[in-house]
C-alpha cells in the first residue's frame, strides 16, 4: 500500500496482494480455456468449477445458478434486459425506486423509452423504501421489480426479504432483480432466504480485480438473451472472459468469507469510530442516512454545513486523502446527489456532503489523521464562506 489514505471503496477498492498471487498462474502457463476434452481444457474446467463454487457458496446458491460476467453493470444488463425481454408479453409495468443505483435507473429510463411504464418508489428521510410502498405500487401488469440492496450513497440496507414476501403474495409472478454491488461482503447475503430471482455482484468492490462480476439466476428463471456470441462454456457470458479474473474474484471472496462476521465487525467498528470523531470534532456535521444496524458497515455520509464538497475533496487530496462528495461541482453532469435530494435533503446539504466508504485496509490512525485534516479544512473554508459569516454575525447579536 502506498501512503495515500483511500476512503472511496464503494467506487473501487485496492486489489488484495493474495488476489494478485492467485491470478498469476492464469496469466502465464495456465492460459487455456475450459471445454475441450484434452488435458489443457480439463485442467482449466476444473479450476473454473472451483471458482464458481466459491461465489455460489458465499451467496448460498447452486454453482449452476452463477454466471461470471465482465462486471456488475454487465450482470445488471443481462438480468434486467433479459427479464424484460422474456416477460414483456405478460405486462408492461416495472417498479424501482428514485434512490436506486444508476445501473437500475438508466435501465428504467431505457424501459420507458421502449414503451414500458415505470413507477418510482420514494424513500423516507433515511433512504429506506418500505415494502408497503412496493405493495401499493403493484398492478396486474407489473412484471419486474428492481432494487439496490445497499444504497451506494448513504449505505441504507433495503428490506429485500420483505420485498420478496410482498411479491410472492401478488396474484401473479413479478420478477425480482437485486443489485448487490455494495452489499456483497458487507452483510450476510443468502439468496435462498432472501428470495430474489436474479442478483448482481462485483469483484473490485471487495478487493478483487476490476472487470469481473457475477450474476445469480435462480434455477428455473427465464431470461431473454441480451448478449449474443460464442458460448465457450456454461456459466460465463458469451465471449472470452479472463480465467485469471475469475481466480482473483474467488480469492477475494474467500478472504472475506473466511470470517465474514469478523470483517463486518471490523468495518462497523471503523465506521462507528469515524462517525464519532466527525461528530465530536467538527461543528455543524449531520449524518445522512440511518445510524447503526440499518446501514451497511462500511459507509458514513455526512453533510458539512456552509461549505461546498468539491473544495473539501480537493483540499483533502492535497493531504493524500481520497473521499467522495455529492456536490454538483464534483460531478461531470453538474448535478448534486439525486439520492440525498430524494431523501429530502436541501441543496446545501447535498453540495456539502462527504461520503467515506471504508475497507479493511483503513486504520484508526488514518481516521484520526483524516478527521484532523477535515477539521482544519472546514475551519478554513468556513472562514471564507459568506453563509458561515452570516450565521456567526447572527449569533453574535
Amino acid at each position, binding site marked *: 500500500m502506498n501512503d495515500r489514505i483511500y476512503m472511496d471503496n464503494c467506487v473501487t477498492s485496492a486489489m488484495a496482494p493474495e488476489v494478485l498471487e492467485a491470478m498469476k498462474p492464469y496469466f502465464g502457463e495456465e492460459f487455456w480455456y475450459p471445454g475441450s476434452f484434452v488435458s489443457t481444457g480439463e485442467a482449466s474446467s476444473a479450476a473454473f468449477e472451483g471458482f464458481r463454487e466459491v461465489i455460489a457458496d458465499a451467496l448460498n446458491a447452486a454453482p449452476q445458478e452463477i454466471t461470471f460476467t465482465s462486471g456488475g453493470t454487465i450482470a445488471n444488463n443481462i438480468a434486467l434486459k433479459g427479464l424484460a425481454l422474456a416477460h414483456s408479453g405478460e405486462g408492461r409495468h416495472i417498479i424501482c425506486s428514485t434512490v436506486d443505483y444508476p445501473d437500475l435507473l438508466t435501465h428504467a429510463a431505457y424501459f420507458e423509452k421502449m414503451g414500458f411504464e415505470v413507477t418510482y418508489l420514494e424513500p423516507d428521510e433515511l433512504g429506506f423504501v418500505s415494502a408497503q410502498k412496493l405493495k401499493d405500487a403493484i398492478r396486474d401488469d407489473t412484471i419486474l421489480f428492481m432494487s439496490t440492496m445497499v444504497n451506494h450513497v448513504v449505505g441504507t440496507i433495503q428490506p429485500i426479504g420483505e420485498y420478496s414476501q410482498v411479491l410472492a403474495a401478488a396474484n401473479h409472478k413479478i420478477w425480482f432483480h437485486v443489485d448487490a454491488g455494495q452489499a456483497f461482503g458487507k452483510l450476510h447475503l443468502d439468496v435462498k432466504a432472501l428470495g430474489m430471482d436474479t442478483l448482481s455482484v462485483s469483484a473490485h468492490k471487495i478487493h478483487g480485480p476490476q472487470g469481473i462480476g457475477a450474476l445469480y439466476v435462480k434455477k428455473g428463471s427465464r431470461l431473454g438473451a441480451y448478449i449474443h456470441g460464442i458460448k465457450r462454456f456454461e456459466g460465463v457470458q458469451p465471449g472470452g472472459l479472463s480465467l485469471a479474473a475469475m481466480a482473483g474474484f474467488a480469492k477475494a471472496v474467500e478472504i472475506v468469507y473466511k470470517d465474514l462476521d469478523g470483517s463486518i465487525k471490523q468495518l462497523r467498528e471503523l465506521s462507528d469510530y469515524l462517525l464519532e470523531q466527525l461528530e465530536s470534532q467538527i461543528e455543524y456535521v449531520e449524518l445522512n442516512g440511518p445510524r447503526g444496524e440499518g446501514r451497511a458497515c462500511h459507509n458514513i455520509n455526512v453533510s458539512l454545513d456552509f461549505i461546498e464538497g468539491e473544495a473539501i475533496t*480537493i483540499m483533502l487530496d492535497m493531504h493524500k486523502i481520497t473521499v467522495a462528495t455529492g456536490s454538483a461541482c464534483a460531478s461531470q453532469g453538474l448535478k448534486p446527489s439525486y439520492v440525498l435530494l430524494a431523501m429530502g435533503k436541501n441543496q446545501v446539504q447535498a453540495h456539502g456532503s462527504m461520503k467515506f466508504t471504508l475497507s479493511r485496509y483503513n486504520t484508526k490512525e488514518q481516521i484520526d489523521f483524516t478527521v484532523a485534516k477535515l477539521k482544519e479544512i472546514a475551519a478554513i473554508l468556513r472562514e*471564507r464562506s459568506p453563509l458561515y459569516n452570516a450565521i456567526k454575525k447572527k449569533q453574535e447579536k
Partner: protein
Amino acid sequence: MQYSEKVLQHFMHPQNVGEMENPDATATEGSPACGDQVTMYLKVDKENLIIEDVSFLSYGCASNIATASIITEMAKGKSLEEAKKITWRDAMEALDGLPPVKAHCSVLAADTLQTAISNYEIAHGLKEVPDFSKETIIGELKKIIYPQVGEDIITLKMVKYVGFEEKTGEVLIDLNLMSFDQYRDNVAEEIREHLQKYPEVKDIKINFPS
C-alpha cells in the same frame, strides 16, 4: 483535465479573503441552492475613482474560490473604468485555464466584481439604474456557460431567439439544445437563476426544438 498549479495555488492560499469593514460598495451573486455564492466588497478612492481595496467571501468550489482570488488581485489598484473591462475569460487565462466543465464557476466571481462596481456607480450618481431590456437578458445569457466546451451559450449560437414582453414581464427564449443533451436542464436552470433576480421579470419561458 485537472486543475492547473495556479488554480490550486489561489485556491489553497487565496488573496483578499474576508469581510471588509465599512466598504464603499458590495455585491452578492449566486445562491446556496446553486452551490455557489460570492460576496465582494470594494473600497474606492473617490477623487481618482481607483479601487483601493477589494475583498471577497465565497461559498463554492475550488475554481470559484481561485477565480475570486485572482480577479480581486487583478482589480486592486485599477480605475473603475479599467476594472470594468476584466472578464471571466481574463481571470481564466490568468489562472492558466480551467477544465471546460468548471468554466461556469469562474463567471460568478467576475460577475460579482462587475455588480459591485455598478452598485458603486449607481450609489454615487455616476450612472443611472439601467432600464431592463432585451439587451439586459442577452447580457445575462452571455454569462451562461455550456459546460462541455466551457464557452457561453451566445458565442456558441445556442440561443435562437430572445423576447421580452414589457407589459406582462414575460421572457421568451428559444434554445437550440436537443432533448438528449445532458446539460440541457443545467443550462435552462441557470438561465432562470440569472433572470429571476430582476423584478421586471415575472415569467420565463424556455423553448427547445421538439
